[in-house]
């Protein structure tokens, strides 16, 4: 078997340092902005037009 346990538990991971936390938070904000942008018709039509 490739993985001894099929499910992983994040609770055993160590606490994030402040700068890693800040970086992760910034990435979450960027991803959420792009996800919300995809709901706009202008953006989808821009993609369809070939960027």
């Amino acid at each position, binding site marked *: 078997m490739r993985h001894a346990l*099929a499910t992983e538990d994040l609770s055993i991971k160590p*606490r994030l340092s402040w700068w890693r936390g800040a970086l992760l938070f910034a990435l979450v904000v960027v*991803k959420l902005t792009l*996800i919300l942008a995809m709901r706009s018709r202008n953006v*989808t039509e821009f*993609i*369809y037009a070939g960027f």
Partner: protein
Amino acid sequence: MEILISPTFWALVVVVYLLLQLRPPIRTTLWFGLVNSGVLFLLLGAPVGLALYGIAASLWLGIRVAVRIRTRSGKWATAVTAIGATVLIGLFVVNKLSIQDTAFAEAVRQWAPGSGVWVLSSLLALSFSYVALRIADMTRMVLAEGAPLLNPIAMVGYLAPFHMVISGPICPYKEHLTLDSRPANWPTFSRLLRVTSIITTGLFYKLVIAESMRIYATGLHGAFVVESLLDAGYFLIYLYFDFAGYSKVAWGIGQMCGIPTPKNFYTPLCAATVTDFWTRWHASLGTFVRSNLFTPMQLALLRRTRGQRQGAIGLCSLIVSFVFVALWHHVGLSILLWGLVMGLVMAVEKTIRDALLRRPWARHKAVQWGCRLVGPAYVFIVISSGMLIIAKEML
């Protein structure tokens, strides 16, 4: 996809998270089963929710009877297990055909006009064919390994967890049972940030990357057409971001609520062999097939032949397992051919690997690095060619 952008769904995720923090003095599997039932009734409607309860109650009764008979007579146990397995396989095939052929649904309505709605809703509940696989894993674990049987309410929490209802993954039954012994899932800032990052990455894969690829290739409401190897390669990348994105979201919700949920994707496009690819792509299905079909079949055949013809038995088990995976996805000739081809490719890879392991030069670092560099390209071409075989029937 609609469910992932629905505010109702995300509001329900938060409600489930908060309710699971309450930890009343009952087993966590039962508490999750109760909470999950509420969510399923709200998301899927009463007929599907009730049908799931009907399936869980029948299963619970059937398995209890099978356990009782087994303790009295070994022969009866074999007969009951065989009948149970045949009924399950029959239900699964009927169900698969019912999804593919709407004429079947019409026939059911004419055959049983009064109870047609209930028959159809039962089939609809089972048509989440992940439910069928979870049923198989649970039945085997209880009957063959002696695992405890969940009551019908808790069982619905295992068979159809709300966050794994769309496209899996399949959590092994024994890991779902660990829910009862897990410590409290207290929120910390690090944990919440990690979980949010996983969920947003999944949504980003699915709603930004996969959706952009789809819109770019097919227009706003078009469908994919796969006619060349290039199309198949493009579709494979799209499929990865779509399916891995969804699986990440399910994994993140599972982590957030403390419900055992498999990860399902381990960078499959970096795999150096097709065998390795299938342990990284949809890993939970691979784990299911390995523990419920490949290994038991291999062991049974080895016992029958008293350890002889190991190579042939290994190859045979591999091909049968892949044919099962193919038919599970879709009942059709081209997918059957795809399953056979994939099984054969993996069998050939195993033969070559076994032969190379005896050669000292094959362990040289330069050779291994070369394989790691060339391998992903080879895997990409083989898997894309496989897509080409099944595209006309599946898309």
